[in-house]
């Protein structure tokens, strides 16, 4: 029974945790620009992140190591530095984007610029991390995240044609704007396969004391949670396709995005959109700030744990205490939240081989996994998606920059 509860919780976490500024912005752009055509990118991203989350959980349950611990131990400091720096940089950028997302939601609600809101948002995230426990952060964020189901309601209200949704699952070549098409595709993959998701997951699994008995729960949580989460991203894309694409509106400015829900649901839709954006980004900001602290502390062997009091894990606490205001400054400086988000997601895609391959190496090491090492399907799937996403990003990012 408690296992079922764990799985249910995992699904809720998936729904609430998957959608954040990255998935929201990239799915909205994809739907507005290309109708239902890019749903395949979401599917590809979901498959890849589901495999990765399952692996990170399995590593934690079998070896009782978090990902940074195991990487440092197995690779030595030199080969650990590359993934450490890559994940830290990407996480920092995404953290800045999430803070921008919450600040933007507050701008929609209050009319006061996001630049004013960024620092108070960072302070609120910090306060919750300082006072809260892991349970509060994880469960609070994911329960509130359920508000994003509003997008599914919106898509149903708009009568999004199921046939188009299904046919979008098959990758097809674009009829126009190929550079933008591929750039959006890799941004979607970058938004889905955020390293913070599986790094955070591995730390949480170790902190919650998982063992071999959790393998089933872990598999179900990863598969179902990520699929449901991806479903919401598809709903966002469908709303954008039905509301914006048909009218030829591109998502270039963030002011246009609330239309996704205000068109099908009216005034309430506007507020649901604001709540979804704010809550989803706030939850993600909590997890990313925490994950940055986990990463650094675990990599260098400092005391860590969100359940410890700040005094008991001083350096760990210091990491998020410094990262949050710094990330907020990006928005204070006036960096457009939508641009920041899209760029962060494309760079995440670009860095995938560096952030993902170390996990794959560990997952094939019997020293850590015993008989539970990876099968060839998960190896091949994750490797293929990350390498292809990296190559496409390598081509698409310069094209996109030249084009705009």
């Amino acid at each position, binding site marked *: 029974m408690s296992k079922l509860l764990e799985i249910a919780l995992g699904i809720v976490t998936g729904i609430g945790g998957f959608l954040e500024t990255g998935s929201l912005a990239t799915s909205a752009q994809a739907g507005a620009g290309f109708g239902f055509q890019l749903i395949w990118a979401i599917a590809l991203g979901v498959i890849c992140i589901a495999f990765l989350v399952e692996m990170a959980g399995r590593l934690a349950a079998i070896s009782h190591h978090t990902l940074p611990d195991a990487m440092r131990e197995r*690779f030595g400091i*030199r080969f650990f530095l590359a993934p450490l720096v890559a994940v830290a940089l990407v996480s920092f950028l995404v953290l800045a984007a999430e803070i921008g997302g919450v600040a933007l939601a507050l701008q929609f609600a209050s009319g006061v610029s996001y630049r004013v809101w960024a620092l108070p948002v960072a302070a609120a995230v910090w306060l919750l991390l300082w006072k809260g426990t892991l349970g509060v952060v994880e469960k609070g964020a994911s329960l509130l995240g359920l508000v994003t189901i509003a997008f599914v309601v919106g898509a149903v209200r708009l009568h999004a044609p199921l046939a188009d949704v299904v046919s979008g699952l098959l990758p097809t070549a674009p009829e126009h704007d190929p550079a933008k098409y591929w750039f959006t595709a890799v941004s979607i993959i970058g938004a889905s396969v955020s390293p913070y998701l599986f790094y955070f997951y591995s730390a949480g699994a170790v902190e919650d004391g998982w063992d071999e008995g959790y393998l089933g729960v872990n598999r179900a949580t990863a598969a179902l949670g990520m699929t449901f989460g991806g479903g919401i991203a598809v709903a966002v894309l469908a709303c954008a396709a039905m509301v914006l694409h048909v009218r030829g509106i591109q998502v270039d400015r963030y002011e246009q995005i609330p239309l996704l829900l205000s068109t099908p649901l009216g005034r309430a839709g506007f507020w649901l959109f604001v709540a979804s954006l704010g809550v989803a980004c706030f939850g993600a900001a909590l997890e990313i700030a925490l994950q940055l602290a986990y990463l650094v502390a675990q990599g260098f062997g400092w005391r860590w744990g969100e359940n410890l009091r700040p005094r008991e894990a001083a350096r760990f606490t210091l990491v998020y205490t410094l990262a949050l205001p710094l990330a907020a400054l990006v928005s204070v400086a006036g960096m457009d939240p939508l641009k920041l988000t899209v760029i962060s997601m494309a760079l995440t895609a670009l860095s995938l081989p560096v952030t993902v391959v170390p996990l794959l190496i*560990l997952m*094939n090491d019997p020293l850590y996994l015993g008989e539970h090492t990876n099968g060839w399907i998960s190896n091949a799937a994750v490797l293929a998606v990350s390498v292809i996403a990296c190559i496409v990003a390598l081509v698409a990012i310069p094209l996109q920059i030249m084009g705009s």
Partner: protein
Amino acid sequence: MTQPREVRLERLLGRLLVDEFGVAVGRIEDVEAEPDGDAYVVTHVLVGPEGRLARLLAFTHQLPTLRAIGLGRKPRVRRVPWAWLDLSDPWHPRLRQAPVGQ
């Protein structure tokens, strides 16, 4: 009585080991130690072609997919007795002249 000399294991790893004629034997991948009374005594050095990469590449040796296409074969790693090592210059470890009778 002179102070015992110290070497740092972490700086020894990955170094190129040459024989008494200066010909490369391989890189130091790891060091084996065994308990001896209260102390732990180093018995062997593991010398192979991969050096520091060995810890990174170990997984390839057991992947059936790679083995099937003839890759990922385990490279030959030699266990060299510690006593054969000449560390008078710790940055450039050498093998001593093959000891007679060993």
